[in-house]
């Protein structure tokens, strides 16, 4: 027997604090696997954000900085500009990236900062106990949209990949999901690609990963995966929104 699956080296031994079935854990592992497979753990500098993934600095087995809410792309810019040979990534949720940090992510993308952004979209603020997020779906009930999100009161959910794809800057934009094992494996390939793009100095790369929040959605972890597939995937279509390496034919 040979070991065909084990904890990646780029994850520490610290037990993650996430709720049972939270797909943050899967996404952490995919990032760590990408780092391992590219052999860049010793070069990597990760930027944790504010929200459920605030403790990411305890879980990634590489140098880490913990940024203020929404500011991770600016912090990553500060690091990458003075240490261009390091591999710099941010790990941000939807409140962090698409609400309070909208200016930072848009401008980092516009400048085509040579960083990798992992954007976890679970359509809710998890850490603060389930408030409406900029990506909360229409009709979705949250602590601050108790009768369901309406267009009249709160407008429309923001589609970050589509929004950033209007800019010239991004080198790689992709949306993936974690609702089943096939899609998790796809997500892993996209995340690895987003690091390769940085290694090749192509510029800004972001992977938006659809994720669950079963506790704040009020369902079991298994049902949450199904809800995500049936509700989030149709509104947030999966796919590659920008890939400059494809244009170049490599």
């Amino acid at each position, binding site marked *: 027997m040979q070991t065909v699956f084990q*904890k990646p080296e780029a*994850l520490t031994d610290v037990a993650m604090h*996430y709720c049972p*079935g939270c797909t943050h*854990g899967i996404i952490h592992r995919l990032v760590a696997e990408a780092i391992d497979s590219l052999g860049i753990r010793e070069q990597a500098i990760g930027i944790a954000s504010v929200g459920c993934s605030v403790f990411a600095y305890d879980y990634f087995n590489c140098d880490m900085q913990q940024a203020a809410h929404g500011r991770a792309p600016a912090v990553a810019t500060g690091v990458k500009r003075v240490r261009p040979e390091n591999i710099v990534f941010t790990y941000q949720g939807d409140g962090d990236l698409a609400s309070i940090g909208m200016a930072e992510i848009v401008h980092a993308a516009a400048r085509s900062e040579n960083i990798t952004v992992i954007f976890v979209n679970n359509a809710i603020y998890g850490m603060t106990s389930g408030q409406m997020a900029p990506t909360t779906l229409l009709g979705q009930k949250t602590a601050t949209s108790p009768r369901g999100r309406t267009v009249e009161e709160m407008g429309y959910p923001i589609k970050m990949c589509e929004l950033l794809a209007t800019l010239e800057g991004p080198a790689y934009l992709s949306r993936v999901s974690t609702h089943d*094992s096939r899609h998790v494996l796809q997500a892993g390939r996209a995340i690895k690609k987003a690091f390769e793009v940085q290694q090749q100095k192509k510029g800004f790369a972001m992977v938006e990963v659809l994720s669950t929040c079963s506790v704040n959605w009020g369902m079991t972890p298994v049902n949450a995966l199904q809800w995500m597939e049936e509700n989030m995937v149709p509104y947030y279509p999966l796919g590659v929104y920008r890939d400059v390496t494809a244009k170049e034919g490599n």
Partner: protein
Amino acid sequence: MPRGEVIVNSELCKECSLCVAACPHGVLGIGKAINSKGYHSVEAVAPEKCTGCTLCAVMCPDVVLTIKRRSPERK
């Protein structure tokens, strides 16, 4: 002799059942024992059916599972 083997780090398990749902062969189930966090850990209830396909581990959010396989690696 099964083709694969699932090794469970019970202390990390949070009883979410994503692995149970992911396994195509019904190898895994939620056990009766309680770990130090108060969760019933997953266990291999039908270990003889394991093919070492890793789909359970792919869906596990807490890196609870280590997978071994007899056939050549196909990762």
